[in-house]
C-alpha cells in the first residue's frame, strides 16, 4: 500500500512541475505587462521603465523563470502587483473562501446525486425514473453561470422586491455589511444565507452528473448474483439496497471525485464572478485582467496542484477499496 502511495506521489511531482512551467511561459510570453495599467497621460516613459524595474520585469524571461521556480520551491510566491501584498497573503485570504464553497458544493452534489441515483435505480423504468432522468439531463446541460443568474433572479431579486417572500437570499457577496457585529449564531446564519445560492448553482449541475453515474452503477450492481441471493434469503429491500448493493455501487462513484475536481474549480470561476465571492476563481480572473503575473501564476499553480492532489486522493481511496488496483 505504501509503495503504491509513494509511487503515485513521486509521479505527481514532475506533473506539478510541468504544469508550473507551462503556466509560467503562457503568462509571461503574452503581450502587455502590469505597468501598462498604471500609465497615465503625462507619465514619462522613464517613470514606467522605473516601475518595471521595481517590479523586476526588466530581466530576461529565462532568468525570471529560474528565479520564480527557485522561490516557488521554497514556498515564496512573490509579490502581487495589483494587491500590493505578498501573493501568499492574498492566497491565504481567498483560498478558504473557495474551499468553503467547493467543499459545500461537493458535499451537496454527492449527497443529492447519490440519493437520486439510488432512487432511480430502485425504481428503474418507472415514470419517476424517466422524469428524474430528463430533469437530471436538463441540469447537466445547463451552464452554471446561467443557472446562477436564474437563481438570483428568482430567489434574490424577485423574491425580495416583487413577490415579498418571507425568505430570500442575498444576490452577491460572502457576508453582510454588519457581519462583524453579529453574534456567533448570527454570523453562521449570515454565511449560510450568502452561500445558499452559489452552492446551489455549483452543486445542481454536478449532482445531475453524479446521479446519472450512480444510477448506472447501482443498476449494474443490482443485477449481480449476490444481490439476488440477498433478496432470495428474504432480506428487506432496504437492507438489500443499503447494506449490500450500495457499498459496491459507490466504488466507481468515488472515481468521480477525481474527475469532477477540475470541473468544480472551473465552475467556481463563473460562480465567484457572478456572486462576487472573493475566492480563487475571481482572483485569477481579476489578476489576468491586471496582468498581475505573480498572482496569476500562483493561483494557476495551486489550482492544478489541488487537482493533482484530488486525483491522488481518489486513486488512493480506490486502492483502499479495491485491492486489485494496488498490485498492478
Amino acid at each position: 500500500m505504501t509503495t503504491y502511495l509513494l509511487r503515485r506521489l513521486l509521479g505527481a511531482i514532475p506533473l506539478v512541475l510541468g504544469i508550473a512551467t507551462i503556466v509560467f511561459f503562457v503568462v509571461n510570453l503574452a503581450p502587455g505587462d502590469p505597468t501598462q495599467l498604471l500609465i497615465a497621460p503625462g507619465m514619462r516613459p522613464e517613470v514606467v521603465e522605473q516601475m518595471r524595474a521595481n517590479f523586476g520585469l526588466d530581466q530576461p524571461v529565462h532568468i525570471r523563470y529560474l528565479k520564480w521556480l527557485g522561490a516557488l520551491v521554497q514556498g515564496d510566491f512573490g509579490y502581487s502587483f495589483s494587491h500590493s501584498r505578498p501573493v501568499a497573503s492574498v492566497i491565504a485570504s481567498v483560498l478558504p473562501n473557495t474551499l468553503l464553497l467547493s467543499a459545500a458544493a461537493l458535499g451537496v452534489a454527492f449527497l443529492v446525486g447519490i440519493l437520486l441515483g439510488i432512487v432511480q435505480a430502485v425504481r428503474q423504468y418507472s415514470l419517476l425514473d424517466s422524469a428524474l432522468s430528463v430533469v437530471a439531463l436538463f441540469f447537466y446541460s445547463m451552464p452554471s453561470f446561467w443557472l446562477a443568474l436564474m437563481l438570483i433572479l428568482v430567489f434574490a431579486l424577485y423574491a425580495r422586491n416583487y413577490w415579498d417572500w418571507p425568505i430570500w437570499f442575498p444576490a452577491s457577496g460572502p457576508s453582510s455589511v454588519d457581519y462583524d457585529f453579529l453574534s456567533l449564531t448570527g454570523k453562521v446564519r449570515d454565511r449560510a444565507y450568502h452561500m445558499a445560492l452559489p452552492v446551489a448553482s455549483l452543486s445542481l449541475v454536478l449532482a445531475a452528473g453524479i446521479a446519472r453515474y450512480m444510477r448506472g452503477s447501482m443498476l449494474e450492481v443490482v443485477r449481480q448474483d449476490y444481490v439476488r441471493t440477498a433478496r432470495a434469503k428474504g432480506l428487506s429491500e432496504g437492507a438489500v439496497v443499503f447494506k449490500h448493493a450500495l457499498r459496491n455501487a459507490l466504488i466507481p462513484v468515488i472515481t468521480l471525485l477525481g474527475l469532477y475536481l477540475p470541473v468544480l474549480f472551473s465552475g467556481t470561476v463563473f460562480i465567484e464572478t457572478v456572486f462576487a465571492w472573493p475566492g480563487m476563481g475571481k482572483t485569477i480572473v481579476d489578476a489576468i485582467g491586471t496582468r498581475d503575473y505573480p498572482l496569476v501564476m500562483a493561483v494557476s499553480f495551486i489550482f492544478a496542484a489541488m487537482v493533482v492532489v484530488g486525483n491522488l486522493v481518489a486513486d488512493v481511496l480506490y486502492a483502499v477499496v479495491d485491492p486489485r488496483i494496488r498490485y498492478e
Partner: protein
Amino acid sequence: MSELEGQGALPLPAEGPPVVPAAAVPPRRQRGGPVLSALLPGLPQVLAGRWGAGGTALGVWAGLLWTAAEGWERVVRSPWAGTDDRVALATLVVGLLGAWLWSMEDVRRPVDVTFVGIGQWALAARAFSRNRLAVAGAMAILAFYLVALLTPFLAPYDPAAQGDLITERLVGPLAAHPLGTDHFARDVLSRLLYGARVSLSIGFIAVGISVTIGTLLGAVSGFLGGAWDSVVMRFVDMVISFPRLVLLITIIALFEPSIFLIITVLGLTQWPGTTRIVRGEVLSLREREFIQAARAMGFSRGRIVLRHLVPNTLAPVIVAATLGIGNTIVLEAGLSFLGLGVQPPTASWGTMVADGRNHLIDAWWVATFPGLAIVLTVLSFNLVGDGLRDALDPRLRT
C-alpha cells in the same frame, strides 16, 4: 466471421438474405402510399408508426415551406445577397428535395428493413432508433442546424440593428419582438438565431479538431508503446489535470480574443480525453488476431493504424465527440460571458447572457432566453450522445 466484417481487413462477402432479428417491427400499412407522400412527405411513415424518420421528413418539409413562405422576399433576393443567404437558399432547396425524395423512395420499399445486417453499425443503428429520447435529440439537433443555416430567412431583424434607443430599449416579449429587446433596442430573437450559428459552428469545428488530433495521437501512442507512449501519456496527464477553464481564460485574455483563437484553443485543450480513450482501445485491440494477421501480412504500420485500428476505435470516440460538442458549447458560452469570446456586435449566447445580467431585475428576458437556448441545444447533444453510447455499448463489450 462477424468480427471481421466492416473492418476492412478482408473483403466482405456479399450480403445474403437479410437477417431480421426477432424483435423486428411488424410490416406496416401504407396509407395512401405514394400520393400522400408526394404532397406531405413523411406523413405516411408517421401514420404507420415510424414517427422518428417520418416525423423528421415531415418536419423538414413543413418547416422549410413555412420558412420560404414567411421570408419570401428574402428568399427571392438571396442569390444576390451574399454568401450567408446563398447558403440558406441551398439549404432550403436541398432540404426540400431531400425530404421529398427520401419519402418517395421509402414508400416504395415493401418491408421495413431499414437497417439491414448484423454488423456493428447496423445493430447500433437499430438500437438507437428504438431509443425515443435519443431520436428526439437527433431530430432537435437537425432542427437546430437547419435553423442556423436558414437564419437569413428566419430572423425578423438584423441582429446588430438598433431601434430607437429611448423607446425601444428593454421592451418585453411582444408581437413585434417575440422575445423582447435588449438594452440596445436590438431584437433578442434575431440575435438568438445568429448566436446559434456561432455556437453550433464553434462547437463542431473545435471538437472536430480535438477528435482528429486525439484519435491519431492516441492510436499511434497506443500502437507504438514504449518510451513514446510514456511521454505522451505524461503530457496528457498534465493537460488533463490542469483546470481547463483557467488555461483557456489565461490564454485568450492575454492574447486577443477572436473566433480563430477561441476555436484553436478549445480544440487544442480537449484532445487529451480522446487520446486516453483511443489509446485504451488500441491497447486492447493491439493483441487481437486480426492485427497480428495484418502485421504478419506485412502491412506498414501507418496503414495498420489508419485502416485497421482507428476505425475500430471510432465507437467510443463518436460518443465522446457528441458529448464534447455539448460541453464545448457551454464552454464557449462561458468564455463569452466573461468577455473573452466572440466580439460584439456579433451575437453569441454567452455575451447575451452577460448583457442581460446588468438588467436582470427589470428585463429578465435578455438573459433568460439565450440560456434556455444553450440548455436545449446541449441537452439534445447529450441525449444523442447517451443514445449512441447505449446503442454502441454492447458492441464494445466483445
